[in-house]
């Protein structure tokens, strides 16, 4: 456990130390964005990687919580911290409701129903102008910040984001190793057998759904505090697809994958675009390359590469049989 967590500790420490290496707030803020995106991708990974439920509506959780905190702390008159807590609570409530609807389906049906649920909330944000400001969104969202923790300073906000990311990694790492996590993967690979053995597949999936929603809500909270602005764009289909892309590119079902995927997408979008005018094309080419060379994502891809290299050295090695995923 500790040994496995070591690379994560090094990466997170490096992220937290970015303000030491560069005085430019730009890179500090960029690192915050990577951390926020990574928390969201980790949340979605619970569904995609471990529950085998591909969601194309994940943005609804960050979206709901960001809108709730934005509305509560501006028009609602709450202070940012209680607004944040209420936003997470509210998101969990709605997520519970949505879970009851969405988890009736699996496979393609689940993809469509999650997308539809996200579109409903997107539509509400877009059309309910008197509350949400329509496509102009809600601006001037205050960041919490007192004397002890001045979150308006980019480096302090970065530490909050990295700290939260560390929490997410530890919590999810433990969850995946727990009997519950193993059972969840059981429902992914052999739902009927799991059911026959006596596991309540629906309840296991629902727990995974709520766990994903919780980390989604945290992402939304940090997003709203970071941008201090929310608009319906954050719940568009492209936003959900982007999170899914992070998970798939990094490697679904791995702990490091979503982190690497998030860093890849955020940096390609915001850093590569400084030097490369056709950055959208670069983004596309990168994903095509990943799909062609490492169809399981970057992290499993490198794992396979290492295995292949190890196989090259001692001459005859037993042939590894690729793991099959047989849904019965």
């Amino acid at each position, binding site marked *: 456990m500790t040994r496995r967590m070591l690379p994560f500790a090094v990466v997170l420490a490096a992220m937290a130390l970015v303000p030491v290496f560069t005085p430019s707030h730009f890179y500090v*803020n960029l690192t915050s964005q990577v951390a926020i995106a990574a928390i969201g991708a980790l949340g979605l990974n619970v569904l995609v990687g471990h529950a085998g439920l591909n969601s194309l509506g994940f943005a609804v959780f960050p979206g709901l919580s960001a809108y709730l905190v934005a509305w509560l702390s501006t028009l609602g008159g709450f202070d940012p911290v209680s607004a944040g807590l209420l936003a997470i609570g509210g998101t969990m409530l709605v997520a519970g409701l949505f879970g009851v609807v969405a988890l009736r389906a699996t496979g393609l049906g689940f993809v469509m129903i999650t997308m539809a649920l996200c579109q409903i909330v997107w539509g509400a944000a877009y059309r309910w102008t008197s509350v949400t400001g329509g*496509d*102009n969104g809600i601006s001037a969202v205050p960041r919490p910040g007192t004397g002890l923790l001045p979150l308006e300073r980019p480096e302090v906000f970065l530490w909050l984001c990295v700290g939260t990311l560390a929490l997410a990694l530890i919590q999810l790492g433990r969850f995946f190793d727990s009997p519950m996590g193993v059972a969840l993967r059981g429902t992914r690979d052999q739902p009927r057998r799991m059911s026959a053995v006596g596991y309540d597949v629906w309840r296991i999936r629902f727990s995974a759904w709520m766990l994903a929603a919780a980390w989604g809500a945290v992402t939304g909270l940090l997003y709203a505090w970071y941008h201090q602005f929310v608009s319906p764009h954050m719940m568009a289909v492209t936003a959900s697809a982007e999170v899914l892309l992070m998970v798939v590119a990094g490697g679904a079902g791995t702990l490091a994958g979503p982190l690497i995927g998030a860093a890849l997408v955020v940096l390609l979008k915001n850093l590569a675009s400084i030097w490369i005018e056709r950055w959208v094309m670069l983004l596309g080419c990168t994903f095509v390359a990943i799909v062609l060379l490492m169809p399981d994502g970057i992290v499993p891809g490198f794992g396979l590469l290492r295995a292949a290299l190890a196989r090259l050295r001692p001459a005859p090695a037993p042939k590894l049989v690729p793991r099959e995923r047989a849904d019965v």
Partner: protein
Amino acid sequence: MPTNTSAVTFRRTRSKASCKAWLLATALAAVCAAPALAQQAPIKVGFMTVRSGALAAGGKQMEQGLEYCLAERGGKMGGRPVELITVDTAGQPATTKTRAQELVERVRVDAIIGPLAAFEALAIDDYIRQVGVPVISPSAAAEDLTQRKQNPWFVRAVGTSAQANHALGEYAAKDLKLKRVVTIGDDFAFGHEATAGFQRAFEDNGGKVVKKLWPPLNVADYGSYISQIPSDVDAVYAAFAGGNGLRFLQQYAEYGAPAKVIAQMTTVDEGILKSMGKEAVGVISSGWYTATQDVPGNKEFAAGIRAKYGADPGYYTAGAYEACAFLDAAVKAVDGKVEDKQALMKALREVKLDKGPFGEVALDPYGNPIMTVTIRRTEEKDGRLQNVVLKTYPKVSQFWTYDPKAFLADPVYSRDYPPARHLGN
């Protein structure tokens, strides 16, 4: 002992020498660098455009307008060369914010021209307030940016969504003598605000808006909306942006054009007029820019753009040019000393131009231009569609003829405000 002394002396002389050299260097630097810094170091201007996604066509026209403006000034403003740093916001608020941070924190620009869409401008509204960088909007028209949420660091080179539509409302009631009108517009803030402005002035002059239709932004087929237009209305008011005006007018013509069309400026903007056909002929619209308008400086501008890019300038081209002209005038007013951001911003707010695509322009106390608004009709002329001016309203402000205080005390224009009192009549 002697060695020790000599060592001390040596150290002293060296430190004296280095001190002298340092003084000399500083003096030299001060003498040579001060004017060089003020005149030769380039002014860094950040330009936020859209190169990918649905808004890219407008972004391209903005780039042309800005390029033309800088070329006309020999790449200089107030005697200093201009370094233009262009970034692509992709038309997304979150990306816009990061691009703004890149411009401010990484490149350290002196001023920003952009962004394109209203929601992009709103996304960076708080940020530019915090960092204090002058921003000139070349296209974002959201009412509140220069009204209820005005920002000390933000001025607009174009009008508000409703600015030209107040004039059209009055013209429709008084000159066209229209009584009953149906409105149809894009279901987003720009469409809502434009329609609200038209409705308010139209109804204040005795007209009645009897139905309001809101097709979603990316609807493929306007048929189901066109069929809801009652047959006994005097006209249809259309408020569309981007390519939607083109698609609406085509489908409207296919349905036999049940009533005449009056329109908000971007519905028949020069930028998309070149893709239109007969269906656009006869549409009466209003705008703060028309390629054919007779104001000082526009003839040269329109001819210049035509010669260089082979197309008439429209909303985005003229807006970006004007934003650049604003900045140029402000930089001249502060003698090129853009490092003093407060002074530059003050100069920007006091900008007065006596010629250019918009003719005479001055900013109101809220940072929004007071300018000429024209009523124009789309006609086929010289083998292409053009907007021909019918009537000119000089010195139109964002508040039209209303009292600014009372105007600002009301809620911002929206889908439901001002309420339509004559629906179904």
